[in-house]
């Protein structure tokens, strides 16, 4: 084996005067010789279908059979499409409907057979002589690049942009100012007064507003809430009626208020609750209420475990301890869930003492200012 490598010194090396030369990081642009000689292609061997006419015929028949079966399957698809109704016979085979299974199978088999037929053809009958095709350089030829640069420069020179700074500067200015209409238009894609930061700090809750069960809208009697109960609730104002006198909300406003008003109410042993300072009177006999909106990115959470008093957010596994002012015990959330101060009205129904005392939901830049 010839060693063409001998002319390339191994690192580290010493300079002729004996001082060590640091590692050579220079990558040679041109190799004198390949470090290992090119072994070339192995001798071509033939397939049975190349040398045996019988095998060739057989492969031909196999491929044709696959294509014919694909045709039949495609026709069967059309037949099945018109024979079976989607709604009928919906558990014919292993819980699958007659229509579903026949349409899926016939179309699938048809496509699969066309594919396997083509691959079979390539593997058995197409010429398979090995050949070498050298990589071509990724860059365009130098003359093409020069010509392109030349054309560009010629164009600039002819337009005279370089010589006429007034034209150049006003053109750049015109395109730049065009950004303003875009900003204004995009800004108004936001619904209504969404840019009013103060709205993010307030919800529809107000002093004396009743808590109601979500979906059904019935108020909650404090005496009927049992130990271990979890109530997914909202504000009574989300169920306006003549009786309660709250105004009807519509469209985006209703959706926004609905999302912000969502609460979870749980009842636990009052001794287990360790209230924050100033929140001692926010609960009613162990009934405690928090915003249902996760403080991480605002998913609704109600995966509650009564034994641990933990509520878990299904999106990113933030876990809050509801017995301990909804402290974050795990996960990416940075703040506890906002707590809604509770009281009981004359008729014994749960009401809010006030709105939430902090913005609910995910953090935002101006949050601390509210």
């Amino acid at each position, binding site marked *: 084996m010839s060693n063409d490598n001998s002319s390339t010194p191994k690192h580290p090396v010493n300079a002729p005067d004996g001082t060590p030369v640091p590692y050579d990081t220079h990558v040679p642009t041109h190799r004198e010789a390949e470090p290992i000689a090119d072994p070339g292609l192995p001798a071509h061997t*033939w397939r049975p279908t190349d040398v045996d006419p019988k095998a060739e015929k057989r492969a031909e028949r196999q491929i044709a059979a696959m294509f014919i079966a694909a045709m039949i399957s495609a026709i069967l698809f059309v037949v099945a499409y018109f024979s079976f109704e989607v709604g009928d016979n919906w558990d014919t085979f292993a819980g699958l409907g007659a229509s579903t299974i026949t349409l899926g199978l016939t179309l699938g088999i048809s496509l699969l057979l066309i594919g396997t037929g083509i691959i079979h053809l390539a593997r058995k009958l197409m010429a398979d002589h090995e050949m070498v095709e050298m990589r071509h350089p990724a860059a365009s030829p130098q003359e093409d690049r020069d010509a392109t640069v030349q054309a560009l420069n010629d164009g600039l020179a002819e337009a005279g942009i370089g010589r006429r700074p007034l034209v150049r500067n006003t053109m750049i200015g015109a395109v730049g100012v065009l950004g303003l209409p875009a900003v204004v238009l995009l800004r108004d894609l936001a619904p209504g007064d969404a840019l009013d930061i103060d709205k993010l700090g307030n919800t529809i809750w107000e002093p004396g507003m009743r808590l109601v069960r979500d979906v059904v809208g019935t108020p909650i009697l404090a005496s009927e809430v049992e130990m271990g109960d979890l109530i997914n609730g909202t504000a009574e104002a989300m169920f306006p009626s003549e009786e309660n006198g709250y105004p009807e909300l519509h469209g985006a406003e209703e959706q926004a208020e609905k999302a912000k008003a969502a609460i979870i109410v749980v009842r636990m042993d009052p001794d287990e609750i360790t209230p924050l300072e100033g929140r001692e009177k926010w609960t009613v006999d162990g009934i405690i209420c928090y915003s249902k909106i996760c403080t991480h990115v605002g998913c609704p959470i109600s995966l509650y475990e*009564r034994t641990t008093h933990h509520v878990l957010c299904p999106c990113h596994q933030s876990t809050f301890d509801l017995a301990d002012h909804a402290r974050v015990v795990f996960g990416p959330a940075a703040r506890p869930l906002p707590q809604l101060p509770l009281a009981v009205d004359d008729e014994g129904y749960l009401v809010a003492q006030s709105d939430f005392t902090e913005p609910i939901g995910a953090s935002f830049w101006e949050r601390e200012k509210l």
Partner: protein
Amino acid sequence: MLLLGLLISGSLYTAFSPAQADSQPSETEQVAQGKELFLASCAFCHGQNGEGVPTVRDGYQLGPSLVGVGAAAVDFQVGTGRMPMAAPGQQAPRKPVVFSDEEIAALAAYVASLGPGPAIPNEADYSIDDLSEEERQEAISRGGQIFLTNCTACHNFNGAGGAMPRGGYAPSLHGVEPKYIFEAMLTGPQQMPNFSNGNLSPEEKRDVIAYLGSLEETPEYAGFTLGGLGPVSEGLFAWVVGIGGLVGAAVWIASHTTRSKKSKVNA
């Protein structure tokens, strides 16, 4: 008149009570039988009087107190085979039932005697058979809303169940008897919160059960549900079976074919 009344009721009582006692044990007998069963099978974890057994770790219990859990809790836990547990742990899985119906009734009667708690619901509480077709559809759609608000977080959008913290899981609700779904909502088994009658009214619970029933009757037009677990099972299927199949096909396309030792004469 009073004497006559007493006489008649007395003779009627003597005439009928022995027969009743034969077919159905009196409540006192049930409680006594239940206590015996309880001492043999439950007291190790729940205490000899159902007061619960605390562990050395403060606030942790081998088995919780059963005072006030009611007959419904016993009927659910023992009737679904969750209790007695094979070993204490995060999850009490459903398994073959070990007690007969009479024994479960006796245990329920005993635990109910420890303190007031929810009773076993009647079939009328959760059945929608009495409703008209229109009312039934209404109940199903309302139950769906209630289910999606209150239950989906743990039990998945179609009731297939889901993972819970620290190795637990919310079980699948498919194929669970309406009575046990009702009792589970009523009593909040294990980590599950209660949905007591003050929280979700009995009609609302019935609607949830009607919705779950309708889920099972709804045809899966689109074929396999892969457990109805959503992106987890579907993603797993796509990555393992779908991409695995494509990789297999690519390997097959590029693999060597059979070679012959002969060579083509006119090549």
